[in-house]
């Protein structure tokens, strides 16, 4: 465990050291009109945490991908600037009598997340514990899901929260990672079988069901619980992750098509059976049909996009309050992308998507460079979990798909999401570290 230099990472983090505090100052000036930077504690805290994480990776000798942390930190930095400019009492926590505003809470979780990332990047260099106990992971995940479903607290019509004392978290985020580990382990083991064999029924070829069965059973159980919990976004995300990993493992588009056909059929059933699904879909088709009722948030988000235009209203200058309230009620969580697009414009929003794309491509590169199938499948699953989640929520914001209540990774307010996203980065760092070490060893051997 020799300390290493991570020069690219450091160079990419340095602009954030200036830009995030600058963002705080600009919003403060725009909002108060006073020629002073305003309180900087949170911005400095953010910069400190990011640099500390960088330092820790160096000291622990991590040779993993150097673009992952800067990309995540950039998205997170934009998020914390946005959250800091909103009314702080909107969300936030009360931890043992200490009132914390939204940005403070987010910063705290940022610290926890970065800590977890460093820890995971270091501890999971050897992936045996992940690979060998995949059924245990799957069981633990499912158990957690059931516990949430039975004993969780209901927020906004969906029972997704578990509270331990004052601190609540959403197990769905953790289950996402556990599910990826399980599927990666399973597919890595059975990959050759799955890719080769198929069941013929007349002219149609079907996947070899017996080989897939254990995985499909567990996946279906998870999906059922998620769907019953009314967590549509997570259901969509899980399905997307599952189908993508299946595609990567087997190279069969037909699996994905079959999955999509089942999904569309299931969606039609859900549309006809469940009122809350119908409301979401109807809103998506025409939010202006009920602009002050069920379509309110979607419509207000579209207005926010429109106000932003090409260049944006400027940090701190958009998001007009309506009757003392934010224009979009769920702005810090589901619609933070719309807020960024309003204040930073099309240019800023596309740049933000670009940063996420960089993160995704580095994750996929990690998968390509991985030394074994399990690591590769794990990297793919983790990367896709971040990428698809971003696409689903951003596409929901811009009305490409029905809106579902999931977070924008690193950007949205929310501890569980932030923590899980950083754990994903940690795992990717661990995988890419191992590839780098192996490549080096081979180089020496040669």
């Amino acid at each position, binding site marked *: 465990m020799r300390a290493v230099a991570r020069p690219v990472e450091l160079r990419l983090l340095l602009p954030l050291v200036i830009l995030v505090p600058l963002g705080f100052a600009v919003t403060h000036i725009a909002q108060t009109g006073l020629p002073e930077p305003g309180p900087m504690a949170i911005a400095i805290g953010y910069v400190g945490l990011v640099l500390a994480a960088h330092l820790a990776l160096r000291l622990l000798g991590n040779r993993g991908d150097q673009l992952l942390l800067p990309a995540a930190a950039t998205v997170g930095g934009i998020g914390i600037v946005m959250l800091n400019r909103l009314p702080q009492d909107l969300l936030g926590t009360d931890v043992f009598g200490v009132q914390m505003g939204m940005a403070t809470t987010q910063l705290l979780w940022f610290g926890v997340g970065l800590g977890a990332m460093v820890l995971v990047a270091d501890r999971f260099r050897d992936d045996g514990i992940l690979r060998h106990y995949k059924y245990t992971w799957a069981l633990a995940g499912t158990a957690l899901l059931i516990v949430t479903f039975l004993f969780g607290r209901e927020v906004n019509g969906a029972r997704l929260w578990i509270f331990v004392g004052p601190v609540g978290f959403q197990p769905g985020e953790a289950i996402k990672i556990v599910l990826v580990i399980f599927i990666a382990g399973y597919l890595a083991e059975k*990959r050759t079988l799955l*890719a080769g064999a198929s069941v013929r029924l007349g002219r149609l070829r079907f996947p070899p069901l017996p080989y897939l069965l254990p995985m499909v059973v567990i996946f279906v159980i998870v999906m059922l619980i998620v769907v019953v919990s009314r967590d549509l976004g997570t259901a969509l995300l899980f399905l997307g992750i599952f189908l*993508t990993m299946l*595609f*990567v*493992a087997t*190279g069969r588009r037909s699996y994905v098509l079959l999955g999509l056909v089942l999904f569309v059929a299931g969606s039609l059933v859900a549309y006809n059976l469940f009122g809350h699904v119908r409301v979401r879909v109807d809103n998506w088709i025409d939010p202006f049909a009920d*602009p*002050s009722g069920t379509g309110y948030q979607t*419509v*207000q988000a*579209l*207005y926010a*996009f*429109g*106000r*932003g*235009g*090409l*260049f944006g*209203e*400027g940090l701190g*200058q958009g998001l*007009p309050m*309506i009757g003392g309230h934010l*224009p979009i009620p769920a702005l810090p969580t589901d619609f933070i992308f719309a807020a960024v*697009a309003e204040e930073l*414009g*099309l240019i800023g*929003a*596309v740049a933000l*998507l670009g940063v*996420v*794309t960089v993160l*995704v*491509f580095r994750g*996929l590169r990690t*998968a*390509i460079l991985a030394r074994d*199938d399990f690591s*590769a*499948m794990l990297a*793919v699953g983790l990367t*896709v979990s971040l*990428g698809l989640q971003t*696409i689903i929520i*951003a*596409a929901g914001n*811009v*009305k*490409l798909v029905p809106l579902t209540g999931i977070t924008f990774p690193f950007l949205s307010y929310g501890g569980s999401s932030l923590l899980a996203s950083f754990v994903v980065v940690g795992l990717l760092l661990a995988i890419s570290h191992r590839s780098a070490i192996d490549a080096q060893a081979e180089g020496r051997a040669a």
Partner: protein
Amino acid sequence: MIATNVRRLSVYLLLAFAAVAGALGWWQVLDAQALATRQDNPQVIATRRSLPRGSIFDAQGQLLASSTIVEGVSRRAYTDPAFTHVIGYASLRYGATSIERAWDDLLVGRTDPNPLRDLLNDILARQPSPHDLTLTIDRRLQDFAASQLAGNVGAIVAIDPRSGAILAMTSSPTYDATGFSGDPSTAAATFDAVAAAKDKPFLDRVRQGHYTPGSIMKVLTAAAALDSGAITPETTFPDQPAQESDGFVVSGFTIREHDLGKVKPALWNLSPALQVSSNIFFAHVGLEVGADRYLDYARRFGFCKGLRIGTDARGLAVDPSFVSAQSNGGCAPFSDDVELASAAFGQARVSVTPLQMALLAAAIANDGTVPHPFVVRDLRAHAANPAAGPSGTVLERYGGDHGDGAISTQAAAEVRAAMIDAVSGPLGRLYAGAGAVSRFGVSGVLTAGKTGTAERGPGLKPHSWFIGFAPAQPGAAPTIAIAVIIEGGGTGSGHAAPIGGAVMAEWLKLLAAAA
């Protein structure tokens, strides 16, 4: 193997990100303007609340609408209820309508007519500065038209046939929108009172009234028939005189003539048939034109689609008029010959707006070209003291473009001649003669016109219609075309025609005084 699939996956993910970026571009740039003018947009509401709003003047610079800021809140005042439907209202509570809505961003100055300055304003986040509007309508004519309508339910719209400029446009009953665009404490009560009043004052009958036209539709039928060559002005139908009393059997259904009074049926060609308004004659003409050609000509005159006073981008929407059943917002094919023959004299499923019928008259007056109507003449710099009149700085001019050719000059001249006879011919003067401007103190000028008495079914008094234009004598360029409807007003000659004649005469007098 996995690596190959991951590379393929990366392409799919990139496409998905690109799709999101594309949708962003749509909302943020391409559709941004449409979003910015929606009435429930909080920014529209906020802007309206606190920013000064430009004034609106009539063609002579008379003040019609202006705003003041009282305790940080913008209040709008309107000077003349005759203009309410044209101008609309800009209310903090009830949104904006008509011109106040279509020109909202320019009135408050959120948009600058100069695209370069508009971009600069955006980048520099400059405070918007308001602009003023001038209408094509002369308040004197508008007030005169409104006084003619007073006490009736109906509408008058007058157009300059050459330019398409709206000269008068008023709907009755009207209301005063100041009550709910000004003092917020009285807004709800005033608005609710108007909403509850009888005969729907909020309805702009010029643009949103849907009426059976009756005999004024014969002008369209004649235009289609003459232009297509289906008839000449001399064409007669040998069976017509007998059918005037016995009825005209079309596909087993008997079409009957309306009460001709003292007029004796005879073998008529276009001029006498239009003078006495023979349904039988025009049923024949409609069948001669044929279903497809009839629909084609109707469309040329603007039927079967929504119209705009102004442009598609910025204008007042006018409901579509139909000659047959409505189908997907357009005209369905005629179901049979009975429907076509009845439509040809303005019954069956024909449904028209007064604006459409004024355009029809204007097109005949304008040598067969349908003018593009517009009601806002120009955009000006904001006058600090609106009571003293508009600023001289014109930023943008509207209207005045070429219309759409519908029929040949020759056919238009033939329809015009028949419409002059309908007003001053030996038989016509009994009917549309009531609309002659000569009866209202304007001498030496011929009037072209046609009355309509639109049957609405048993027990209901018919709608009274008149369309026409003047001066109509050969060689003269008509300066006003008009459509008048009085709901349940009885015969066209009894009610709408004299109002139409009086309004046209008033305009000719105003023009003569200005010259």
